């Protein structure tokens, strides 16, 4: 089989592209594939994809956003748009306005619900339980199950008090 692009050399690379559910097949020789590959990388690099999403829902002007700098490592938002990678863990805080919508777009969610490291384990787990309790209480009120709501309210109060006592101790 001959290469679809140059029509001269033997096709050794076979690409399948899916655009709008339509599948097209390309048969390329090694040289043309390299060229095509470079072209595709240029167009479809992860950083470009991320950058394309990075402005979503941003509330500040792009030019100002670009200049935002991480106070810990000196990385700028423009660096992120170029490389698709962040500079350090503190960048997440420095660019939180931009990263929030981006994370939501990537993952369909912007809240972690998985494993919690040992060091922070207890506080985070407590916060999650607390959030859950509050949601259940609100639901109970809406459904006019006031006895259940009162029970949950007491539980929340108890947890808050316990948290405060522990804080005072440490």
């Amino acid at each position: 089989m001959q290469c679809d692009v140059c029509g001269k050399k033997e096709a050794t690379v076979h690409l399948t592209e899916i655009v709008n559910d339509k599948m097209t097949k390309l048969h390329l020789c090694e040289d043309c594939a390299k060229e095509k590959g470079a072209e595709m990388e240029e167009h479809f690099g992860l950083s470009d994809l991320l950058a394309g999403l990075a402005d979503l829902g941003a509330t500040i002007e792009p030019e100002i956003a670009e200049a935002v700098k991480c106070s810990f490592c000196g990385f700028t938002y423009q660096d992120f748009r170029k490389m698709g990678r962040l500079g350090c863990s503190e960048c997440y805080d420095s660019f939180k306005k931009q990263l929030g919508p981006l994370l939501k777009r990537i993952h369909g969610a912007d809240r972690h619900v998985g494993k919690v490291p040992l060091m922070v384990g207890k506080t985070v787990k407590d916060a999650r339980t607390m959030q859950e309790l509050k949601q259940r209480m609100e639901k109970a009120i809406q459904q006019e199950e006031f006895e259940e709501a009162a029970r949950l309210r007491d539980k929340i109060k108890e947890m808050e008090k316990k948290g405060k006592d522990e804080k005072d101790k440490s």
Partner: protein
Amino acid sequence: MTIGDFLKQDSEWLKGTGPSANIVMSSRARLARNIDKAPFSNWANRTQLEKIMNQAREAVSGSSLLKNAMFIRLKDLGEVDRTFLVERHLMSPEHAQEAEFKALIVDPGEVLSIMINEEDHLRIQILQSGLNLKECWRMIDEIDTEISKKLSYAYSAKWGYLTACPTNTGTGLRCSVMVHLPALVFAGQIGKVLQAVGKLGLNVRGLYGEGTDAIGNIFQISNQVSMGITEEDVIDNIERITNQIIAREDAVRKTILLKSKEALVDRVSRAYGTLKSAHIITSNETITLLSAIRLGVDLGVVKNLDRRMVNELFILTQPAHLQKLEGKGLDSSERDIKRADLIREKLK
């Protein structure tokens, strides 16, 4: 022990054991972790990279689970050795590049490996034969917890584990299974299956080659997102979907046996014949033919070979493995000859 000793043992991902091993070659879990308040590996300077490497090494060396693990600084290895580790799925191809401040920790059984200073400070990986993601997670969770006692991880209550690329933020977990689907490819159903899997939030790609033209009919299925979903749910999703794919592949295999047994036997026997008599053979041709033979072994039409042997040939015929076996560098045409020699010898 040196990495050369790996040649004497079966690579974990090719052992051919574990649940559904006739279709699922291996399962893998990978965690991305970073040290708190330190620049990510791509952005760190030389001093910082050295420091990160030492911190990671020390944290890991204290672990009771990693007592016998090897610590390998990649700058001490030549290109062939690095590719050898990539071929054994112990590290990523990216990790073999620009190796000055990179390291790899690997246990002698090749189940656990940790890349240091890849894209993230730590990339912990567990590899298991067959469909075994739950066991992968159990092990990696334990090791991760142990390391976290020594290293303060970059973590936010809202966004979870913080990683260099936002696509890994959250759990930092990527799980994947490697499946051999020759019957679905043969029957022309693979496109539909892969499209359906893609719609369910999972990623599919060929192990060798691209998309539906994957060489050797080996595909890798992995999760796309890492935030807003628990580790257990990620694993459950992949296992459920993989089980459905297994059922489909199995059904098509049975149909082929029933309706086109002659065509199957013909295909498998021709593959066997070529491998047994070729004197020059490329890596791609080898993978394609081995895929046919593996199916033949699974369906009992090849009697005198076992899956382990076929799997072993998958890896021993890779470029860096051939060169390690030969003990010297070989160019591509020399390799094609040596590869054919090795296969004839093994299939004698």
